[in-house]
């Protein structure tokens, strides 16, 4: 069985398991939706008072906001295994069992759980994006759709790369390091607004160190057909999400390094 089909089996098993409590699942999805929707109500309230931020209106920000919310919900749903890697696999010694199986550890960890509760945030992201389209008249042309699909794929790769790095650190720290949340949840929160509203040092962190701006802000500009107010060359904008794949590649390289150093912690 190829890795793709095997992942399909993992995902199907995880989905069936979550559907065995449909009421709970529906409530958790609704909760995710509500929690993220009220955040956008806050954005709306601020725009009612100020009108614009860094030259952007509510509709523009809704497009950036919706894109990163969709991207993050997908990544967050798929990477649960890496998120809990320290506490669930390393601390308990359960990781030893994954090593015995004739399949890559990354595939098995990806198959750990496909979290359907994140559908709540996905719905919020799509809804916010639709609000942005209605307010700005943004058209989903084939070119725009191609850029956005590439941006979402690059963004899922980037956030997954962060989770892989968090898991790699668990080889040394044993516990899952919550501080990585500032880059995942914190990065998502920062990318809800266009990067030009931030101070330069903060923008540089989010473009060059952890290239969240490359998978949200720059491709969204390309899809809107707007130049970067900060002056990034036009040809860079649609290609920028490649940085997400590069980031994931580096993360997987570091993961393999950590794997070699792994000595079981279980009893």
């Amino acid at each position, binding site marked *: 069985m190829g890795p793709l089909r095997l992942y399909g089996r993992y995902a199907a098993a995880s989905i069936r398991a979550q559907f065995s409590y449909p009421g*709970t699942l529906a*409530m*958790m999805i*609704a*909760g*995710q939706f*509500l*929690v*993220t*929707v*009220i*955040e956008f*109500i*806050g954005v709306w*309230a*601020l725009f*009612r*008072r*100020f*009108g*614009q*931020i*860094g030259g952007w209106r509510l509709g523009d920000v809704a497009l950036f906001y919706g894109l990163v919310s969709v991207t993050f919900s997908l990544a*967050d749903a798929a990477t649960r295994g890496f998120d809990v890697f320290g506490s669930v696999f390393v601390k308990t010694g359960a990781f030893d069992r994954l090593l015995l199986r004739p399949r890559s550890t990354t595939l098995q960890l990806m198959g750990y759980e496909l979290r359907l509760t994140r559908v709540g945030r996905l719905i919020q992201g799509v809804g916010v994006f639709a609000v942005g389209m209605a307010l700005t008249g943004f058209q989903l042309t084939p070119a725009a759709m191609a850029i956005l699909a590439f941006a979402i794929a690059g963004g899922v790769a980037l956030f997954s790369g962060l989770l892989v790095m968090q898991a790699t650190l668990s080889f040394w720290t044993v*516990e899952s*390091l*919550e*501080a990585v*949340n*500032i880059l995942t*949840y*914190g990065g*998502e*929160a*920062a990318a*809800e*607004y266009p990067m030009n*509203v*931030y*101070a330069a040092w*903060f923008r540089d962190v989010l473009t060059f160190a952890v290239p969240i701006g490359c998978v949200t802000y720059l491709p969204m500009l390309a899809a809107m057909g707007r130049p970067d107010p900060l002056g990034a060359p036009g040809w860079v904008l649609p290609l920028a999400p490649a940085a997400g794949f590069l980031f994931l590649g580096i993360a997987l390289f570091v993961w393999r390094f950590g794997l070699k150093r792994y000595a079981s912690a279980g009893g």
Partner: protein
Amino acid sequence: MTQRGEWLPSPLRGGVGGGGLPDDLPPTEKTPRPAASQPPSPRGGGLPGALTPYLAVFAGRFQLMLQYRAAAFAGFITQCWFGIIRILIFAAFYAGGSAHAPMTLSNAIAYTWLGQAFLAFLPWNADPDVTEMVRTGAVAYEQLRPVDTYAWWYARALAWSIARVLPRATLMAAFAVVLIPLVGLGEWGMPPPPNAAAAGLFAVSVMGMVLLSASITLVINIVMTAMLTDRGPSTLAAPIVNLFSGMVVPLAFFPDAARPWLRAQPFAGLVDIPFSIYFGGLSGWRAVGAIALQFGWTAALIVGGRIWLGRVMRRLVVQGG
């Protein structure tokens, strides 16, 4: 933006700040059974004697929760980062013109740092120990204790929230009050209250916030005990608390027509009332009135919650065996 995912507390993991900060609570923790589980002395107890078990459970849990230093430090780092993002966004909005803003940028910065420092006071979840008791059926034993269950749980909730907030708020004060001005970024740090009256009223209002937060945690506990699951109440509590407390955005930014109503509802006392008093947005008799409202809601929730818990416990049917 959501802080925490399952931080969200559980719904947010993220959570507020994002509705989803990672949940840093220990999954379970054993309750110490000190003097607390002994019946109060039947003779000559008097008031101090009657309070002994509640003080003991408070002290035991307080000391226990203070042990989670790594969680407190991770929470502090996360809250600094979210505070920075929020302040940068406020600054960008204000840079475009603040004619319609209900407060100054400096006020908004104070509000943001206070919100991050006191984040753990927000009652997003039921008490995790009580959740565990409900799950296992051990909640029935609570009726065997010769103590008032409501007061017992209230003391636990108070200790839980205060012990989680104290280390984080201390670190946050060191960061926002001392460190930021020291490196020459004073305008981004936490400004002091405008006068002694504001400082004094703020101190009283923080006490109201702590008592109110515990009374709302108890409401969530009671709903959970009645439903025998924490899913529903904890899922709904986080979004309601975040929005109506003023954590998502200060209540003053909402449309003016909604403001009297927003200030009057109970959740305003968790964030908006104390923080607005701090920077002088609420002062004089209006501040005193807001504090009275805070304590009034707290008293109403305690009295109503105690009656409700009594009914729930009488009808309690536990599962498991």
